[in-house]
């Protein structure tokens, strides 16, 4: 069996040698390069624009402004389409604008023979702006008479949920605790920047090559943005150098398509610089959360309520769904209570926030697990004991969507973690550190979903073709973005077909003209939603192989089986009738019977089970230097069955690293008055270097999710959720200050320590 074992990544060899080609590694004869004229201010209207000098600059093909772009307003969020008009993504963008809503918003674009010429020509475009009031906060954007950033005003979306009588539940609680929490703007910092190019071979066919997580969605949105049939757009996604949700958005593809259309089909490339990625791609939504929790004296959570304000910046992108999504993902963890959730998402003059690993859950869980910690402390209970008393059990129901929990390993995550981490011993020892160097331990839990259903349709496809030599090509439109899905898909197919996984070649490049439909990589969905499609297609392929072997041998198909890539008797698996290649060759070339083996399937997933987990962490705080050092950190996960332990560990390590960065180092610093981004580069945006992360430990509590094709649940995003609050809780224990805003950088820790008179 391949599933469950640590097969090497199918793309590792190509990547270590540099042979794997990413979007920017392709070039074409006559390719042109486009550069934006971007707003230096965060809010304004263009009074005057003069492109004449740029137009005549040698090497410039064309300059376009907001006056030249199509009048089709389009959405950019990477969601599957909906037939329900109320569920469509918010359309609020044109390709260029004269109403700039954030620093870096684009008013014009230059196309030239090379990057340098384009850059120089951009500097020749003269733009005068009428400055408009810059709104960076909720108070400003939601104030009476605030300047409306979009026709509908500055409120993008509001919602409120209560799964019971909140007031009564709080009234019946012995203790009610409240807190206010702030999470920062993060940026994905995928190593490959945003890059796309487009060209045309026929008038009704635009070919776009792009670093995207969502090729089929890009196809649809490009069609909408240019007012052309979706089928006229072909999107190709090569190897991709990290996305983390930023590339779950339609980014530069519509502009590339527009430019090649305008320029007669010549190839035009747009590659954003690292600086542009910060100001003009997507970021993580900053949340301000007011929270309230009610507990009984014996340690039972009766209710909690979160009131979220989410800042989406100048455009909607995913803003309308991120705050809402958190309300679907977090209630599983403590299900036996009254759950309250209010969210308001607003426009502002910050860079546009979009999807990022965790999709609202890290922010909401930071508030929740801080509140839970307050409650445990108030009750004088061990934080692990308190959580054990309240976490989900098998057979519980999600209080919001009433779905039953059919696999649940969170209790074992906590008990195993407590033992592995030596929680009790360490916690007792921390108290001994009373000098300038202090110690603390912290814990936090999370729950998460395994796809987007029922918010969105969940559809996946798989196509299998057996080659003459018995190997199999596997096509999916679920995208490999680094997480290892191509490898796990190969393992799935190999397992069903009973062939070695090295015989399955997952076609890593998606091509919307060819690859079976699937919206792409997001919501930690792919193994869960593609699994059934592969299971069905591989089962069908196997039946065809066995049927043909039956034809060849004259044996009834029911007597035959496949074992280790050979056709054998079901009752005598050691007796080999045919090597796979013999059967395949016969199917291809027998003059009188059979046909080459292929099979395909498309599957709609209508279940969405939760995954669970928790983090244990110990920190050392150097009080005078205001420095936090992680001494040890352990993530435990119930992601159902683990399909490839090595890849799974890689996901957990990466998520933990990103979470630690987000909790201790990273925030986009934006001037509150001007809306200008101060740290738009990898030097000033402090994502952790190898020296900044400790050794990362993880453990899997394997459950079997009965609704899943292979027993698995989500894993890509979950590891990023719980380290943040666990760190906050550990720092509280160590330093004696409750810090309810992330990241807990030395300068923020300094402010709290100084205010508390501790330094």
């Amino acid at each position, binding site marked *: 069996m391949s599933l469950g074992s640590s097969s090497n990544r199918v793309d590792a*060899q190509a990547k*270590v040698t540099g042979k794997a080609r990413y979007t920017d590694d392709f070039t074409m004869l006559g390719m042109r390069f486009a550069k934006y004229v971007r707003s230096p201010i965060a809010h304004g209207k263009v009074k005057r624009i003069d492109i004449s000098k740029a137009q005549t600059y040698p090497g410039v093909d064309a300059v376009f402004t907001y006056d030249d772009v199509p009048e089709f307003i389009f959405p950019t969020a990477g969601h599957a389409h909906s037939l329900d008009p109320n569920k469509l993504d918010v359309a609020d963008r044109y390709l260029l604008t004269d109403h700039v809503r954030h620093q870096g918003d684009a008013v014009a674009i230059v196309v030239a023979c090379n990057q340098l010429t384009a850059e120089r020509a951009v500097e020749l475009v003269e733009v005068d702006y009428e400055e408009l009031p810059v709104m960076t906060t909720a108070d400003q954007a939601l104030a009476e008479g605030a300047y409306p950033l979009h026709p509908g005003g500055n409120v993008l979306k509001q919602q409120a949920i209560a799964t019971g009588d909140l007031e009564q539940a709080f009234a019946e609680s012995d203790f009610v605790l409240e807190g206010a929490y702030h999470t920062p703007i993060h940026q994905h910092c995928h190593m490959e920047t945003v890059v796309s190019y487009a060209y045309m071979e026929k008038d009704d066919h635009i070919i776009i090559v792009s670093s995207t997580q969502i090729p089929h969605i890009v196809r649809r949105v490009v069609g909408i943005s240019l007012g052309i049939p979706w089928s006229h757009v072909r999107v190709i996604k090569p190897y991709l150098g990290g996305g983390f949700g930023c590339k779950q958005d339609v980014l530069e593809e519509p502009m590339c398509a527009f430019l090649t259309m305008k320029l007669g089909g010549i190839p035009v490339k747009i590659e954003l610089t690292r600086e542009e990625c910060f100001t003009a791609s997507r970021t993580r939504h900053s949340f301000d959360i007011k929270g309230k929790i009610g507990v009984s004296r014996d340690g039972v959570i009766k209710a909690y309520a979160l009131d979220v304000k989410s800042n989406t910046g100048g455009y909607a992108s995913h803003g309308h769904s991120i705050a809402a999504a958190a309300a679907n993902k977090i209630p599983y963890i403590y299900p036996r209570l009254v759950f309250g959730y209010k969210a308001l998402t607003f426009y502002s003059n910050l860079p546009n926030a979009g999807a990022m690993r965790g999709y609202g859950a890290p922010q909401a869980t930071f508030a929740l697990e801080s509140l839970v910690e307050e409650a445990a402390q108030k009750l004088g209970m061990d934080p692990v004991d308190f959580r054990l008393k309240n976490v989900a059990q098998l057979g519980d129901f999600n209080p919001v969507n009433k779905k039953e929990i059919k696999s649940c390993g969170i209790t074992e995550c906590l008990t195993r973690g407590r033992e592995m981490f030596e929680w009790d011993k360490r916690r007792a020892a921390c108290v001994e550190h009373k000098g300038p160097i202090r110690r603390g331990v912290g814990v936090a839990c999370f729950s998460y979903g395994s796809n987007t259903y029922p918010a969105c349709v969940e559809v996946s496809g798989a196509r299998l073709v057996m080659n003459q030599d018995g190997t199999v090509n596997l096509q999916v439109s679920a995208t490999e973005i680094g997480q290892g899905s191509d490898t796990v898909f190969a393992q799935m197919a190999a397992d069903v077909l009973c062939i070695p996984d090295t015989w399955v070649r997952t076609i890593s490049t998606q091509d919307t003209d060819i690859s079976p439909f699937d919206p792409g990589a997001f919501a930690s969905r792919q193994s869960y939603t593609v699994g059934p499609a592969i299971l069905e297609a591989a089962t069908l392929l196997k039946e065809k192989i066995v049927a043909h072997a039956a034809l060849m041998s004259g044996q009834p198909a029911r007597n035959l089986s496949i074992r280790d890539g050979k056709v054998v008797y079901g009752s005598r698996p050691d007796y080999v009738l045919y090597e796979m290649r013999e059967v395949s060759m016969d199917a291809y070339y027998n003059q009188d019977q059979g046909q080459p083996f292929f099979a395909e399937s498309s599957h709609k997933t209508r279940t969405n089970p939760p995954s669970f987990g928790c983090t244990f962490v110990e920190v050392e705080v150097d009080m005078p230097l205001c420095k936090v050092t992680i001494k040890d950190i352990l993530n435990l996960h119930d992601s159902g069955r683990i399909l490839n332990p090595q890849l799974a560990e890689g996901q957990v390590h990466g998520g933990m690293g990103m979470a630690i960065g987000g909790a201790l180092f990273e925030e986009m610093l934006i001037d509150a008055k001007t809306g200008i981004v101060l740290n738009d580069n990898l030097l000033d945006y402090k994502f952790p270097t190898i020296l900044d992360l400790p050794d990362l430990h993880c453990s899997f509590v394997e459950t079997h999710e009965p609704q899943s094709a292979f027993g698995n649940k989500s894993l890509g995003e979950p590891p990023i959720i719980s380290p943040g609050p666990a760190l906050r809780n550990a720092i509280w224990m160590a330093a004696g200050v409750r810090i309810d805003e992330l990241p807990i950088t030395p300068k923020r820790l300094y402010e709290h320590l100084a205010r508390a008179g501790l330094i």
Partner: protein
Amino acid sequence: MNMTPIQCTINGQAREFQVDPRTSLLELLRSQGLTSVKQACAVGECGACTVLIDGTPIDTCIYLAVWANGKTIRSAEGEVRDGVISSVQQAYVDTGAVQCGFCTPGLVMTTTALVEKYRGQQLCRDTIRRELAGNLCRCTGYEKVIDAVLASVDNKPGCNGQGGCGRCEDE
């Protein structure tokens, strides 16, 4: 601008170029099809464009191509000998240190230099961290990258690579 002639060795092959002095080494190498040299920041902050120049890792994005005159350059492509990837590359494959792969060739080259520099010596995780501090990776949390480096060197018995054994060079 006047073209400047340079001679250098790239992955074992003697090469001659007429170089525009405005060109970065990154641009020159990529123009020769060396796709392992990745641009991710363009200002020497991430290490994705690392190659070895005379055995030393450098960021090619902030290195003028004309400076390569007389130098020996190695990139990840050249570490494959007779169709077999190097032991460092194999270690990255085997330990699961590769995810999106964009930083990988740079890490492979920095690791290659590190392995050659510390040949026959003990290596701690701390030393590895210091030597790889110029290569940013957003996918792995670096955990399996360190595993890959440890798997690339033949740590002698007695060294667990964790530090604290007292036998490592910098303890």
